[in-house]
């Protein structure tokens, strides 16, 4: 890590205590840009820190009663295209008396300069200090953003421990998928929101507005109580966790009679009523997704057992075909983007995706606008869709995700794809002119053996063989990408043992040899994988409890930043931090990662309700061990996961009966 020396050498926290006047005598809500500007001359890609994007909003400070800083705890290039932040930014700014600005993690070069010059963590819109806002909303797509949150809070002059904050300190609100188990960051946040954010941020804003209007009665504690009483906002400080002598959790208890035992997730029921983003941001800096995105549905019912996203976003809620078309048209007019992405967890599963794809492809055919549909479904229909969307364009790579290498493995994870399906699908793809097929698998799945992973090699060879036959060419390619499996909360695998990194790496080496040693096909198959170490840290953070908070803090104080970036990630640093933080405890990293849990164990997130019935999850875990698959409840009768029942709803899919997009044709330059 390049920056670590500099930071440790200077003693990151020692410097901080000297940062007495972050505000430099300016009024609350004032811009700090003039103080930031001289620093920008010396850092990489300064454009990411200046804001000023098309469709950005900067409101007058005094026009608002409730002020949010929305933070994405990663670099601007990753955070700016994030849909969640963009949607909340619009939803909040549409309200007369609410103001929302954005903030992103600063790279270590700027962090160092900011510490030296006592410039606070800022928003890119108004360059206002984070400490001036009422609320800081942080969206965690992954747990690897935790250390960046600590950096941001610290740069903002906000005490990293929630218990040290006073009346004038902003509330720190965590959201995003990782917030479904916020226990490892329980000491650092004030509130966690589970599920969809649109209504939740308005609910929180309303409560804050009222409390401020009344003159902040009862101080910070009263505000937290009001939030907790809703039953859908989790305030970790209002719960006490006790442990058994063997290290397991004894219970998690609300510390006040009015605080609920369990906290529910938020679920937006009608996507068409929440037609966002309306005017997406157009970043000046280059970002990871240079396109306008429209979310065509939320949720997924395929029931892949490893998939946290699929489990916690149930039930499926589709946007209508007209709703999709409207967002696309409005978004393109507002941005000038040249690509539209039809997003969801499994986009080919929208009940009217065929019509949506065809209509959009027709409509934008001559306007130099391309359409993309990130989908990895293994079937011919998916290939048809990809063909439709690539009309007239280059057919380079197509991705499929069988996830498990062997038939047996795919039954364990409930990915219902046979080898025959896969070969038939890739054959169709190569036959329609695609030259490069990418296959996505996981390594380290429950019950997996070397043999299950080695079957990935035979599968890839079959793919090339079939491809050569159908295309009559030898230049076709197949890339195999392997992700390490990390068991996640609120999935049937939440009880599973995570594979240790040594075995993961050894297994991957065997796979590599099996592919490389093949003279006939080896050269046509590419293999991409990561070593198993980062997965262990991710596993620790995913299924950790409050004791893991000390590990995070220790790692961060020793210099951990940007843990999702391999060039910044330090496994040894994290292990040293864990050693330190767990000394005197009965638990350690293995206890949190490679240990299998029992049915009766209290899991750190059991008091957080994702809608899934825990008896159902356990049954599904047992089915996994018995290699029994379950059906997709979108198309076949329900299998009682508990979500629909609890929400008093059912799966919302078409048809709407609308097949054409009721809109004029579009041509370049009209």
């Amino acid at each position, binding site marked *: 890590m390049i920056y670590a020396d500099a930071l440790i050498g200077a003693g990151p926290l020692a410097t901080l205590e000297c940062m007495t006047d972050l505000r430099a005598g300016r009024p609350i809500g004032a811009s700090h840009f003039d103080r930031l500007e001289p620093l920008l001359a010396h850092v990489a890609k300064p454009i990411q820190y*200046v804001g000023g994007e098309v469709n950005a909003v900067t409101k007058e400070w005094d026009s608002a009663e409730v002020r949010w800083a929305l933070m994405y705890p990663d670099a601007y290039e990753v955070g700016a295209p994030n849909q969640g932040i963009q949607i909340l930014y619009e939803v909040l700014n549409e309200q007369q008396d609410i103001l929302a600005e954005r903030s992103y993690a600063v790279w270590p070069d700027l962090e160092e300069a900011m510490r030296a010059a006592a410039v606070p963590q800022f928003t890119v819109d108004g360059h206002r200090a984070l400490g001036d806002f009422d609320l800081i909303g942080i969206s965690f797509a992954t747990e690897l953003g935790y250390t960046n949150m600590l950096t941001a809070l610290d740069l903002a002059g906000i005490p990293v421990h929630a218990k040290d904050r006073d009346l004038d300190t902003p509330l720190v609100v965590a959201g995003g998928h990782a917030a479904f188990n916020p226990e490892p960051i329980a000491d650092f946040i004030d509130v966690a929101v589970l599920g969809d954010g649109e209504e939740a941020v308005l609910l929180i804003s309303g409560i804050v507005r009222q409390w401020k209007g009344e003159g902040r009665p009862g101080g910070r504690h009263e505000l937290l109580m009001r939030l907790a009483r809703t039953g859908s906002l989790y305030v970790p400080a209002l719960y006490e966790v006790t442990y058994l002598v063997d290290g397991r959790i004894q219970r998690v208890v609300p510390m006040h009679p009015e605080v609920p035992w369990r906290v529910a997730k938020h679920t937006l029921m009608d996507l068409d009523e929440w037609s966002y983003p309306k005017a997406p941001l157009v970043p000046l800096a280059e970002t990871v997704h240079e396109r306008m995105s429209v979310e065509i549905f939320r949720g997924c019912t395929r029931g892949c057992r490893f998939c946290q996203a699929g489990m916690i976003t149930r039930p499926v809620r589709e946007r209508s075909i007209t709703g999709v078309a409207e967002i696309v048209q409005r978004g393109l007019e507002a941005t000038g983007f040249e690509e539209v992405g039809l997003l969801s967890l499994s986009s080919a599963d929208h009940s009217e995706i065929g019509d949506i794809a065809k209509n959009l492809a027709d409509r934008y055919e001559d306007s130099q606008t391309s359409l993309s549909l990130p989908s990895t479904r293994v079937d011919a229909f998916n290939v048809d869709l990809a063909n439709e969307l690539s009309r007239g364009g*280059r057919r380079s790579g197509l991705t499929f995700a069988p996830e498990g290498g062997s038939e047996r493995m795919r039954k364990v994870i409930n990915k219902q794809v046979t080898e025959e399906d896969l070969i038939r699908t890739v054959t169709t793809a190569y036959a329609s002119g695609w030259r490069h097929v990418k296959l996505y698998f996981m390594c380290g799945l429950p019950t997996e053996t070397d043999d299950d992973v080695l079957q990935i090699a035979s599968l890839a060879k079959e793919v090339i063989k079939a491809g050569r036959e159908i295309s009559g060419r030898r230049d076709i390619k197949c890339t195999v990408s392997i992700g390490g499996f990390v068991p996640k909360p609120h999935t049937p695998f939440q009880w599973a043992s995570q594979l240790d990194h040594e075995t993961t790496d050894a297994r991957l080496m065997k796979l590599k040899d099996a592919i490389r040693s093949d003279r006939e096909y080896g050269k046509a198959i590419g293999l991409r994988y990561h070593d198993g170490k980062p997965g262990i840290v991710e596993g620790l953070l995913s299924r950790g409890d409050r004791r893991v908070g000390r590990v995070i803090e220790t790692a961060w104080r020793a210099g951990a930043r940007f843990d999702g970036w391999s060039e910044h990630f330090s496994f040894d640093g994290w292990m040293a931090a864990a050693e330190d933080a767990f000394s005197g405890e009965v638990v350690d990293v293995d206890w949190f990662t490679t240990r299998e849990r029992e049915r009766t164990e209290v899991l750190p997130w059991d008091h957080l309700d994702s809608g899934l019935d825990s008896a159902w999850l356990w049954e599904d875990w047992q089915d996994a061990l018995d290699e029994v698959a379950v059906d997709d409840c979108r198309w076949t009768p329900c299998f009682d996961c508990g979500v629909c029942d609890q929400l008093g709803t059912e799966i919302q899919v078409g048809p709407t009966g609308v097949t054409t997009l009721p809109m004029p044709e579009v041509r370049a330059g009209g």
Partner: protein
Amino acid sequence: MASRRPPDRDVAPVVQRIRIRHARRGRLRFSSHRDFQRALERAIRRAGLPIAFSAGFSPHPKISYAGSAPTGVASEAEYVEIGLTSPRDPGQVQVALDAALPPGLDVLDAVEVRTSDFAQRLEASWWRIEFPEVDPVALAGARDAFWAAGSVEVERRTKSGLRRFDAREPVVWLDAHPEQVGGCAILEAVVRHVTLSVRPDDVLAALRQVADLEPPVPPRVTRLAQGPLDPATYAVGDPLAPDRRD
């Protein structure tokens, strides 16, 4: 299976070219040339201008850029040329594009292209460099030392490695304001464009070398103009002027 060929679409020809002068101001001075390219392409689409495209699998919009000021430097005089498939009034193009670009990337002028030697007309640039917290007397001293030097060799890292070159010779005019303006000492320079253009950074490096001028805060640089150089007065003229004549 036959391999797929680029679609046989009719590529609409360019019927009109528009030359545009734009500014890069305020915080957007930190945008790079590539950042501007993307912003302009999107603004053109947002403004609904009938931009022409090249043929092939990945068609490119017909836009050409004149040498742009370095990242971090503001400018009042950047030039770009776009090819349209149907004629538009240059004044309207200016207004539409300006509205579609973010504030700070401002379109200042647009003319229909009538001449072909535009690049050659960009003979020199006129720069203003603001030095916050620098004493104008110290700056004037540095200016005089630089001016008196026959040549000042500086180094710069380029794509082809570290290069050494003379930063003095292309500077044809250099003036230090006698007083601070807005808390800054101010230097203005007119620099002839040569093969390895001398940039404001190079002039700053030269000032450090000849007079130990070490600004406490990074100076702010603005390109005020670029165009034909009047050999008598060293004034930098308007490169769009020949296009304006009928």
